């Protein structure tokens, strides 16, 4: 029972009322300066804009920008993960296989972003006359939804492949230990009540149902 959780909450997004319908232009900027290593300027603008819609600053709780998610993603691209070293990437490739047989594209995560963002921006220019990052927030949400559902057809990376990569890395950056560059100041852990790397509940085993009182700690941070 090496149980990983099944995909609760993985239902496709369909309800426009659940996302901000504000008319404000998407105004994603990093809250502190970070110069990306992998992403080129137009790609970086796309990443900033996209993650700020996937986990928006709207309402209570930290958004992806505040949590440093873009920095996390950029740093991951420079690691063996970004280069696809964790995956079997030998051909032949059968992307037409049933989805239940898993990832069958030839691309590394770096390639998914490089090819996918270029194609997505081209699609945005064609349909909206401007790149994704320049769209209003509500239009950005619609665009992301069309990527997710595969309503948009991209010439290289399948749109759901780009979206899935983005969403997966965004949640990784939001929830992982701050040593990886995201979850800055443990904002996401504080938001949900996860104590991070405390890893010691000896004195809490016999207090079932009582709220755990200690703030999170991180691998590289102070332990109080």
């Amino acid at each position, binding site marked *: *029972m*090496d*149980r*990983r*959780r*099944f*995909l*609760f*909450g993985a*239902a496709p997004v369909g*309800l426009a009322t*659940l996302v*901000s319908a504000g008319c404000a232009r998407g105004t994603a900027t990093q809250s502190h300066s970070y110069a990306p290593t992998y992403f080129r300027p137009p790609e970086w603008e796309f990443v900033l804009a996209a993650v700020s*819609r*996937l*986990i*928006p600053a*709207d*309402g*209570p*709780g930290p958004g992806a920008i505040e949590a440093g998610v873009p920095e996390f993603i950029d740093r991951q691209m420079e690691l063996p993960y970004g280069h696809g*070293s*964790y*995956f*079997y990437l*030998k051909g*032949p490739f059968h992307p037409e*296989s*049933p*989805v*239940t*047989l*898993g*990832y*069958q594209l030839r691309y590394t995560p770096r390639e998914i972003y490089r090819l996918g963002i270029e194609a997505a921006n081209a699609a945005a220019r064609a349909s909206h006359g401007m790149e994704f990052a320049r769209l209003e927030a509500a239009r950005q949400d619609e665009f*992301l939804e069309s990527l997710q559902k595969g309503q948009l057809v991209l010439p290289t990376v399948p749109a759901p492949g780009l979206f899935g990569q983005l*969403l997966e890395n965004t*949640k*990784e950056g939001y*929830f*992982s*230990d701050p040593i990886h560059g995201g979850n800055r100041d443990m904002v996401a*852990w504080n*938001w*949900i*009540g*996860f104590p*991070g*790397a405390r*890893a*010691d*509940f000896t004195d*809490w*085993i*016999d207090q*079932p*149902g009582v709220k*755990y009182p200690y703030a999170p*700690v991180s*691998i590289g941070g102070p332990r109080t």
Partner: protein
Amino acid sequence: MTSPRRLKSVDAVIIGYGWTGAILAKTLTDAGLSVVALERGPARDTSPDFEFPRIADELKHAIRGDLWQPLANETVTIRHGLNDVAVPYRKYGSFVLGNGVGGAGVHWNGQLWRASPEDLSLRSRIEQRYGKKFIPPEMTIQDYPVTFGELEPHFDHFEKVCGVSGTAGNLRGQIKPGGNPFEGPRSDEFPTPPLPGIFSAQLFEKATAELGYKSFPTPAANSSIAYTNPYGVRLGPCNLCGFCERFGCFLYSKASPQTTILPILNGRSNLEVRTNSYVTRILLDNTGKTATGVLYVDDSGREVEQPASLVVLSAFQMHNVRLLLLSKIGAPYDPASGKGVVGKNYAYQMCAETAAYFSEDVEINPFIGAGAAGQRVIDEFNSDHFDHSQLGFIGGSLIYAGATGGRPIDQMMVPPGTPSWGAGWKAAIRKHYRHSAPLGTQGSVMSYQDRYLSLDPTYTDGHGLPLLRMTFDWHANEYKMAAYSASKMEEIVRAMKPDKQATILMRPGNPYDVRIYQSTHTTGGAIMGTNPSNSVINRYSQSWDVPNLFVYGASAFPQNIGYNPTGLLAGLAYFSADKLRGAYLKSPGPLISS
């Protein structure tokens, strides 16, 4: 082409240095043999590899899987049916493969179960109780050639090696309160007492009691106290740290080869462990009936021949089968004719899950947990513990409550209908994270004529050798079994009175989905049986075809069980080790005439 470097012969070579490799290394070096253990992955030990705080890194270990077998150089290919094209398992999902010293025994959950007595004589039992026609013709289940009574002393010993925490339910035939009344008679108590249940397990305990079920603490290879095992190795108490399965244990609490057996083997002059050594073939003499050693690629990429008088194949289930096929030992299974045995009877497990979402005044504290300790389970609907006559299926499931750490990337639970991103998702994770509990079923999968393992015709590993190909999908029996188990689980969850609950269940029409983690309990392909026409190995895990080859692990299971496999495969290894030392080493040759 350069020929392989040929080394000096040794008495025994071990392929794979995980649980069964360590068990056999101890047995054979105790007997005075010179032993070389070849491990495909790196050396690993509690210090420095599992040290706190760096081990408490969900991304590194539970998502990227830095302790797992890197798939880039070798994976398996998978197809659903006999006429489909198999494609590579390119990213981890459905199951996780071990790598390095300790193997998957490093990052397992530590749920240490014995099989039920009836699991070991399944075909006979079903035929006697329900009639021969109850077993569908395509179902190729068979009895183990060994009984619970024969294995019991070895189950008991392995529990003591691991410092397992639990409560006995059947002590020498006497049913004991608080334990599992369905377990086979045990000769002794568990070596350490259970840890208290985590909160969701306490809610489960109350609900199951109301429904008349007898819940008990999950038998956990997470020691609950400071403990010294029979080899003199010390384990420490588990603190429910929440970084257990998928991680190495920094507390010396979770049993692994490193925390139980290897400390007494390290430094033995008649044992040499060579890491980063990838075995590509078991070598045979010109009769094809005697193994002469193994061929492997060493850590500098050179091909090396290690001659040996005895070969122990103790890699992970899939790798055992692949090496037999690559070495042309035994007849490969042919699903069309049903003939041949290597690769036959691949099986898996079928699981379901119900999430219970409580109101915000119910503090579940999901981050408190371990791979096994603190969890609670019922065994009423597993194995043949219940009457199947009106149900139309064979097998069953454990039903359990058990959070293992509430790690947020991988284990976040939000109710169905929650958007997967955006402001709605962000609000939902806060609302539900601290107040949700997972329950699960873990069910058996039977073996079938059209489910098997073979070499892939197309895809190769980093050395150009064929990958293993898995042909697998669910059969009707398993859909029915899982639906029945899930209905019982849902009833229990209702009695726990959450605000809402939701179940994930594979239903007819849902094919095997490799993207979703389900179970690493893959079994079969080198199964044990009574004769060479129905099996690869005999009751002592000895190859029928090559008697100086012994094969260990869940590859021996003729069909799968609803329990976790490590207790059974370790019991089979110790049972074999006794016979190896007591009989085989004195007079090498077939232990059972075929």
